[in-house]
């Protein structure tokens, strides 16, 4: 006879209401876990989307994401000729705020690349890749732009020709690919009045063949680290492997956000533990006479401990199920990615089980201190 379940069934309304409150709290804590994971995934989304084995950047920088990096565009040719390099492509990155076709501001992370070279969009989910030399764009679905939409940037109209899925910057902005030439003009070409002023000042006309990085794919039989070492010997250039670039992103670019989210998650879990402990303690207080009666009629301690611990676990399981269901039904409406896979949910469920177990100890302690004579008398 399971006393915990019978008691729950007897007070089902109160139990479900309690679970609802706890579920909301656990749902928020789980959301924080998902947002934490989402921040990391978003940070890695861009370099992974480009599929580079090696990042060649300006010497003394850990660019192009953690720090600014500018190198000449012809570095690509030199990198492509290195032994073991299969292909190389020059890329630039910049953030752009544009006006949506229907109005409103849209923030994009622009990736400019050379078509048919590394740096382009990963798998397209709609439309086609960039085919013309100028003013075409492949955007991520998060931008909310349909194929065929046009956007104005730098005085030019760009047409969306294809869509990708799940490609965002470390800041959560959707990625949009354009050609390297378009990107360089957007980023490095001065507006005509400014160019005239520079010319008048004797500065000459600045060239625009500058890129933020050159990315390379290395042959499978070649060690990426060896190629990186080779590049590091060159003047004015530095190289990071894909693993080093990911390390830079997670340790530097989103480190504070991760710590912030991690700490907030811990605070929420502690709050959940306190709430569960108080609920279980209150439920136990409500049952002191029943517990005393059980002791008097000979119930073993394990029967009484089981009653309390099972109720605490049921509270956690039902609360988590409710909170997780709610979260999964709304997580796609969050402005940033809430990355929750089976691994995160299972880990969180185990954590909740442990919290409930620990939180029930207060109730267990109270129950074990109940004297059987409390059942006697009025």
């Amino acid at each position, binding site marked *: *006879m399971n*006393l915990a379940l*019978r*008691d729950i*069934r*007897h*007070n089902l309304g109160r139990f479900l209401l309690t679970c609802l409150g706890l579920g909301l709290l656990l749902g928020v804590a789980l959301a924080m876990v998902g947002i934490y994971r989402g921040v990391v995934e978003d940070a890695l989304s861009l370099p992974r989307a480009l599929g580079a084995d090696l990042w060649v950047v300006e010497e003394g920088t850990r660019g192009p994401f953690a720090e600014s990096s500018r190198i000449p565009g012809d570095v690509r040719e030199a990198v492509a000729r290195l032994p073991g390099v299969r292909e190389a492509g020059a890329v630039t990155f910049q953030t752009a705020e544009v006006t949506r076709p229907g109005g409103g501001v849209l923030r994009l992370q622009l990736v400019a690349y050379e078509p048919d070279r590394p740096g382009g969009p990963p798998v397209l989910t709609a439309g086609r890749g960039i085919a013309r030399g100028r003013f075409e764009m492949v955007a991520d679905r998060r931008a909310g732009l349909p194929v065929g939409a046009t956007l104005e940037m730098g005085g030019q109209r760009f047409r969306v020709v294809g869509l990708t899925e799940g490609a965002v910057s470390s800041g959560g902005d959707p990625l949009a690919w354009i050609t390297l030439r378009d990107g360089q003009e957007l980023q490095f070409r001065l507006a005509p009045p400014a160019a005239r002023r520079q010319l008048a000042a004797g500065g000459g006309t600045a060239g625009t063949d500058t890129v933020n990085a050159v990315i390379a794919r290395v042959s499978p039989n070649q060690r990426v680290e060896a190629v990186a070492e080779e590049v590091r010997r060159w003047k004015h250039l530095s190289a990071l492997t894909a693993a080093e670039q990911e390390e830079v992103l997670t340790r530097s670019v989103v480190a504070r956000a991760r710590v912030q989210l991690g700490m907030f998650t811990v605070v929420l879990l502690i709050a959940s533990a306190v709430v569960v402990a108080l609920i279980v303690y209150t439920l136990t207080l409500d049952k002191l*006479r*029943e517990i005393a*009666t*059980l*002791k*008097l*009629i*000979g*119930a*073993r301690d394990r*029967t009484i401990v089981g009653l309390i611990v099972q109720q605490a676990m049921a509270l956690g399981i039902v609360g988590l199920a409710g909170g997780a269901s709610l979260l999964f039904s709304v997580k796609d409406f969050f402005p940033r990615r809430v990355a929750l896979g089976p691994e995160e949910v299972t880990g969180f469920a185990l954590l909740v089980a442990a919290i409930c177990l620990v939180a029930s100890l207060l109730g267990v302690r109270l129950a074990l201190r109940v*004297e*059987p*004579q409390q*059942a*006697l*008398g*009025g």
Partner: protein
Amino acid sequence: MGGTASPPLVVLEGIAKGFGEGEARVQALSDITLSVEAGTVVGLRGPSGSGKSTLLNLIACILEPDAGRLALAGETVWEGGRYRRRDLRALRREKIGFIFQFHNLLPFLDATDNVALAMTLAGVGLAEARRRARELLDYLQVGRRATAMPARLSGGEAQRVAIARALANRPRIILADEPTAALDSERARVVMDLLRQVAQEQQAAILVVTHDEKIFDRFDRLVSLRDGRIEAELVPAKAA
């Protein structure tokens, strides 16, 4: 009433119990010698603070005596300043049934399962426990309320279910603490008659703490306590 020739199931010899230390010490019981034979119902009466509840707690092995000897169902349980048994809850499961003033049924179990619970705690399988619980409820004429939750039972019905629970493991000793205090006269008499019937048919020793004068005539013996001592022991005149 018969049963005086039966062996005593509850034996107290020179039992004493005090609470507190030094000047604050209160002697709750002094030199209590009492025996209750199988098949008898003994009443314990006395004013508040006379030691009735303390005596009941001592017999239930909830409180330790300071001195004396306590034997239950032929087994010496306390002697020489210590319990002779380690697992006192097992002792209670095996030998003692309890009836309370406010029935103390578990509110989340129906009448059958309240009775069956006592049996499952003693190791009886749930199906068998439920079958026997229904038999007991029928025996106590409350079988038609077998599936009712305690909150739906009248005071008399709840007390009968509580008696069924007390009888669940066929204990030789039943301790009742004011079992009729929450009942009207008619139901109080019915409950007492049931206890008398149980004592006779199951050869149990029943000890009842009560203030309820209207049931005094239902006891085989009535022990009066005052200031922790047995003041008098009477054999009440039986009512019709």
